[in-house]
């Protein structure tokens, strides 16, 4: 049973925010401009991004609402009625509620009755987890159509008040705490949606899903990107172990951190996974027509290019396509937002039978995920 992506949708909240406007939205911590902002923004090269908070750091769109908007656009563009959707899979790093799962909330907003739901919780690669589950349910012929949505609202974690409240954290102690501040200038908000069906759309371009694979290396590496602990080696508590949530916040256990020293490992494991797929004959680098790679920052693009080339499985740069620079790094939502625009852009001409390789690495605890799509035209 072949499964196809037959429709897509995306939602980016508010206006595009330029490089120099970012701190105005997230807020200057204690009123002081960041020392690291320019440096980090220069290396990630993201020119514009979107936030679901306003300049007073008030939420303008909930995560559920963004997911719903992307899903609605996707369904509106499709050739099927909503009642054909048998499954809703939703991926996010953090839903609006710790419980229940975000798929329940999105289902309610969309008003889709009596369907199967799945919430995939992780970071960037959670989108692939949700997509794989939906793909498999169609392959098992349990449903005719499944809607997969990924949505991120990172800015609520990155606003100035979070850092100001962490008065006993590593961030408060150090004059520069790169690991705690790094993601502040990297991540932004948005949502994407894909409709999966057991047949191609009657008109236009569909994408057949050939395979989805993932390799996680959490058994070997320490955590690299996380929320929920204070970022001190000798303190094993996670946020709910503190007496009060206020204590957890004061200790910095609710700040988002990236151990930047460990980041290189995700690139290496990314190449390892691709070498494995090439060795198995699952993917043939020479036959990849388009490469949609979710890299979080421009600085990693060159490294991935170099590593793949050196390993003899290089994909020429002209086959790479991304909208990171204009839509921002929206974590789990990035790939779907990328696919949505890729299908509409004039920059690329798609023809029948072309192969698209998608790659979503997740630095959280080193998960690498890959997917191959084939262009089908009706």
């Amino acid at each position, binding site marked *: 049973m072949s499964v196809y992506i037959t429709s897509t949708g995306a939602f980016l909240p508010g206006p595009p925010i330029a490089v120099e406007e970012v701190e105005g939205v997230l807020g200057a911590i204690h009123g002081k401009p960041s020392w690291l902002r320019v440096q980090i923004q220069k290396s990630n090269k993201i020119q514009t991004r979107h936030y679901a908070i306003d300049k007073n750091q008030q939420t303008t769109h909930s995560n559920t609402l963004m997911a719903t908007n992307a899903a609605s656009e996707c369904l509106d563009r499709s050739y099927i009625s909503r009642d054909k959707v048998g499954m809703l899979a939703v991926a996010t790093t953090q839903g609006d509620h710790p419980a229940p799962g975000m798929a329940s909330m999105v289902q309610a907003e969309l008003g889709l009755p009596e369907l199967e739901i799945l919430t995939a919780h992780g970071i960037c690669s959670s989108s692939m987890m949700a997509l794989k589950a939906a793909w498999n349910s169609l392959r098992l012929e349990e449903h005719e159509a499944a809607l997969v949505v990924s949505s991120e609202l990172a800015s609520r974690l990155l606003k100035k008040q979070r850092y100001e409240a962490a008065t006993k954290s590593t961030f408060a102690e150090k004059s520069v705490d790169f690991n705690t501040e790094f993601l502040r200038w990297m991540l932004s908000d948005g949502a994407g949606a894909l409709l999966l069906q057991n047949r191609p759309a009657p008109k236009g371009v569909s994408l057949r899903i050939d395979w989805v694979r993932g390799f996680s*290396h959490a*058994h*070997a*590496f*320490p955590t690299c990107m996380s929320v929920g602990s204070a970022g001190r*080696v000798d303190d094993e508590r996670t946020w709910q172990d503190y007496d009060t949530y206020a204590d957890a916040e004061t200790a910095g256990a609710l700040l988002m951190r990236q151990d930047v*020293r*460990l980041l290189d*490992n995700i690139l*290496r*494991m990314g*190449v*390892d996974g691709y*070498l*494995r797929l*090439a*060795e198995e004959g699952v993917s043939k680098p020479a036959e990849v027509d388009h490469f949609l790679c979710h890299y979080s920052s421009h600085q990693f693009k060159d*490294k991935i290019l*170099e*590593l793949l*080339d*050196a*390993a*003899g*499985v290089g994909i020429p740069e002209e086959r790479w396509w991304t909208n990171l620079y204009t839509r921002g790094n929206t974590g789990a939502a990035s790939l779907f937002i990328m696919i949505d625009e890729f299908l509409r852009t004039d920059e690329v001409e798609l023809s029948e039978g072309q192969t698209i390789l998608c790659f979503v690495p997740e630095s959280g605890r080193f998960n690498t995920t890959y997917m191959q799509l084939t262009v089908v035209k009706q």
Partner: protein
Amino acid sequence: MIGGVSNISKSNQEAEGINLNPNAQKCLQQLLRVWLGFERDLSTVPLLRRIDLGTYTIEDHLCLLRNLRQQVIEGARWITRAASSFDRNHAEIRSTIISHAVDEHRDYELLEQDYVASGGKIEDILGMERNIGSEALHGYLMHRSSRQNPIDLLGAMWIIEGLGEKMARSWAERIQELTGLTEDSTRFMSYHGHNDGDHMLRFYAMLDEVCVDEMATSSIVKTSKVVARLYRLQLEEVEHGLE
């Protein structure tokens, strides 16, 4: 020698002049995967995980150096033994290996100086026995290098030299930062980054010469896997006594 995939970008630029035959290309890809798995699994070795986590101490450093010395001494022995096991049909590779051995066969002296500079007593490092993993690694390498034309040892060189380059790239400075020790304590580690370019070219040339069929590929790759596992065993054993 080659830096595994650890210095992969450099390796590629420098390998551009060499067109590897298809078997050697395939072998190189498999070696890259063995290296990446080895490098990943090093993160599970408690002493090395402390470098990742930032809790590595001077005591850890002394312990690591004490344990590495035997490996370095034995390394000079198996490599010269391997050179003597190549017959006249392999004169080129024999020359390469001999000159590599000349480069590195007294590296352990550097390591001893690092040990003293880190506050250790020279008699402690000189009196250190091979740990359990070093015994296994040394035994295996001497056995393989005693066989006629042991081309599979390219797989061993790939891992061991790759680790040397990794020490230079990601351990030396980090260890100084974490322990307050100076460059004088990590010379052995840093030094291995320097000759990397030349070694890389030599490695590619050797691989192209000897890796001409599937049998050669599989023997080189298998030896790289065994050496990776035994090297990790050696590092896992650094904190275990011999009692």
